């Protein structure tokens, strides 16, 4: 097996000999291939794929909410620039992540068709693309908006790339717990873009995304467990089993609900938001309880093809959109 232990990397895709690696190897290291030849196969959509556009929607949305609910005023052009910088920086993180994880992406069924493991973009080009976008977005944020927002943006990029991708992801089942902080930065950056500072409210918004991330990702990991096991990524279901993962999903959701009510209790938002947060949270709780109560064998493996986990994962995305949407609506109407 071509699976690493600890933080050892799976051999590079150009010399991989297992599974998807054979296909990839034939693309990038074929005797017929010439240096730089992959570029001829590249479609502009491959470069967009490198930015993980589906993840970006949540980043853009939560960043925008941070910007909307922050006290003060920011010119629409500068607000647009701030959101654009957050989006581009998050996309850059995705590109750098795909460059670093190209070995395990080639093994995992869910990711083997990404541009690098599929041989459509060369790893070095993806890295250069990601670094250029990351540096550029931080500089533009600093010049056009303000320095605190640019510094937090730079911190979020460094956290995602160095702490999550390079350090935690392959070492510990707590990878997405701590690494989740990287995805929690956008509302803080949006807030800082308007105010030039950070106070309690953006930190609560940060906390909400931070605590929401484990149940969201572990719901996915429950049904993608074979992929993670094959790639040697120590996700919680791989290390501690599905049963413990279901228990942890429920625990994090129980902690999440009171935290989502915090903006109401500190007087930042009105009763409509409080009611919306409570109702959305109760539905989320019901979804994750179904994950816990899923029919399973003695080892904890789902006997329903992880239907409840898939439903909880899907709902968790809508949940965050609806929760932050309710906060913004409450702020705009109230």
């Amino acid at each position, binding site marked *: 097996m071509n699976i690493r232990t600890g933080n050892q990397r799976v051999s590079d895709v150009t010399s991989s000999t297992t599974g998807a690696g054979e296909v990839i190897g034939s693309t990038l290291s074929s005797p017929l291939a010439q240096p730089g030849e992959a570029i001829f*196969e590249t479609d502009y959509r491959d470069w967009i794929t490198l930015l993980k556009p589906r993840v970006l929607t949540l980043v853009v949305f939560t960043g925008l909410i941070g910007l909307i609910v922050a006290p003060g005023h920011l010119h629409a*052009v500068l607000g647009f620039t701030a959101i654009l910088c957050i989006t581009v920086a998050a996309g850059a993180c995705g590109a750098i992540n795909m460059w670093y994880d190209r070995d395990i992406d080639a093994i995992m069924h869910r990711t083997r068709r990404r541009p690098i493991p599929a041989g459509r973009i060369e790893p070095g080009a993806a890295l250069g693309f990601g670094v250029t976008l990351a540096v550029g977005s931080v500089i533009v944020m600093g010049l056009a908006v303000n320095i605190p927002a640019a510094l937090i943006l730079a911190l979020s990029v460094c956290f995602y790339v160095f702490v999550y991708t390079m350090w935690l992801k392959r070492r510990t089942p707590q990878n997405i717990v701590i690494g989740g902080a990287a995805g929690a930065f956008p509302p803080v950056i949006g807030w800082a873009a308007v105010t030039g500072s950070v106070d309690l409210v953006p930190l609560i918004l940060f906390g909400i995304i931070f605590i929401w991330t484990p149940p969201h990702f572990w719901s996915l990991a429950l049904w993608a467990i074979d992929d993670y096991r094959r790639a040697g990524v120590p996700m919680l279901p791989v290390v501690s089993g599905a049963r413990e993962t279901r228990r942890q999903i429920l625990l994090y959701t129980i902690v999440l609900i009171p935290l989502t009510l915090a903006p109401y209790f500190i007087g930042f938002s009105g009763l409509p938001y409080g009611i919306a947060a409570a109702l959305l949270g109760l539905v989320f709780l019901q979804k994750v309880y179904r994950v816990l109560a899923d029919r399973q064998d003695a080892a904890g493996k789902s006997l329903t093809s992880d239907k409840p986990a898939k439903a909880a994962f899907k709902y968790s995305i809508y949940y965050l959109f609806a929760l932050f949407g309710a906060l913004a609506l409450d702020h705009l109407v109230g």
Partner: protein
Amino acid sequence: MAPQTPIRPMSDEAARRRRGRNLAIFIVLLGLCALFYAITIVKLAHL
């Protein structure tokens, strides 16, 4: 003198993709120019 490497003619599909990439880069650059211009105007107005 370095040995010459044979140049493979570009297929129609590769040419189409190159045109697509060039157009995408053009649109991005145009957008950036417009954005930087707008930022400059806004910043000057608030000096």
